[in-house]
């Protein structure tokens, strides 16, 4: 990871999908969650909600597989973006991303992905419970790893 990234605290997420709404309005002018760059994965009956979006990987695989170089690393702003004027909508980046971050916009017929709203992510701004945050990747790396291992060991303890 590099630069700033969006991190999610799934325990704070209520599954309201406001982030999807504001994302689609900001990027497309339409209130259409299917065109949002952030997606809330739901385990509805268990009350688990996990907003997912681009992880801003250090070696982005989507960039590697893109045949047109539409998906590229903007080194200046340290983020991975898709140039929609170059994208041919082949969906390779969608198939290739392990996080399922890019998605296909059926209106514009190109792939879309989170571009961090040019440094001011609307989902972070509008999330009432602060389940999505925009922080420096250095801090995220350590805290995320610690959080994950804590949860994992807690689970293992429960299974014993």
């Amino acid at each position: 990871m590099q630069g700033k990234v969006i991190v999610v605290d799934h325990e704070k997420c209520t599954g309201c999908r406001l982030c999807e709404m504001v994302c689609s309005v900001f990027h497309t002018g339409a209130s259409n969650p299917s065109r949002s760059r952030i997606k809330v994965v739901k385990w509805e009956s268990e009350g688990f909600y996990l907003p997912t979006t681009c992880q801003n990987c250090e070696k982005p695989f989507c960039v590697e597989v893109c045949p047109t170089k539409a998906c590229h690393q903007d080194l200046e702003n340290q983020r991975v973006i898709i140039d929609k004027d170059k994208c041919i909508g082949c969906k390779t980046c969608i198939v290739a991303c392990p996080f399922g971050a890019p998605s296909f916009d059926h209106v514009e017929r190109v792939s879309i992905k989170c571009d961090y709203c040019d440094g001011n992510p609307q989902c972070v701004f509008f999330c009432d419970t602060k389940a999505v945050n925009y922080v420096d990747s250095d801090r995220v790396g350590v805290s995320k790893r610690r959080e994950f291992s804590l949860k994992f060991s807690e689970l293992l303890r429960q299974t014993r």
Partner: protein
Amino acid sequence: MSLASKPSTKTLKRIRPQREWRWEIAIYLYLAGMGAGSFIVGLFTHWNGFGLSLPLRTFTFWGVPLELSKLALLWGPILVAIGAPFLILDLGKKLRFYTACFNPRTSWLARGFFILSGFILAGLIVLGALSFQQMSHPPLLWRLFEIISMLLAFATAIYTGILLKSVRYIPIWNTPLLPALFLLSALSTGSMGVILSTMGYGLLFPGGGLPHLLISRLTRIEQILVLIEGLILATYLISKYRAKDQGEDSVRLLISGDLRFLFWGGIVAVGFLFPIVLEYLYSHFPQYPGLLFATGALLLAGGFFLRLGLLASGVKERLPMYKLIEMKIKMSAFQRGE
């Protein structure tokens, strides 16, 4: 039963088939593979690889003499050329298709653009040149060109598997067995294609006698290819099924999930069982060419279903976070004694 007592594990995410690359890509992969495979078999036959060649039939079109027997063997590049637009059909922005070759340094889709174009060009040159003039003693340079076109045909057949393999995070695609399977399927469907075209040629121009001998030899080779293909497919699926989190979901999807009809009906029955039975019958009743035509049609359809099934079963590895959440769900179900 109250709502609360329903087994919570049912609420885990249902695995659904991959839907980004669909039938258009399956046709693209299939026609590329079958075209390349038939060209390999056809060129090998043309080199007298099976000790036989088709009787010659020369026709004159607008004053140009054309040798039709070569078309019966070397039509592969035409099929690949027909298949390539299906990739374009799948694109969101079809008119920008030519930019799909801008990143061959890392993208296999871009590399495929060059491999397929190279094969179509070289294959059409071979087909055209051999149809226009008989070369009893071809110059060395020409032989070299033929070998290059053969290598390009192999590259095309293997590429169809490598394209999927290059998408690393889909475990069922990420194995060298997939390009091997697609190569074998390309050769088996390709040889069946050549058998059918040779047979059509024999029916159109009867009296040569040779097509039957050639067909029986090709059929033997095709049977061996189908057998090896079946073995690779079984090894491939078993190895993926055993590797937990590394393709198990996809194999489940195929054998007992949403894709079970496609797998058991389309791939196993239409692609392997029926053709084997019909071919066996044909070997006992060669006076009924309809049996071989039916075998061919089924085998070719099976080849397409194989691509379609493996494409659709390409689900991603579940992320650690998802696994963690699903583990939690299972745990709470367990603690509730469900």
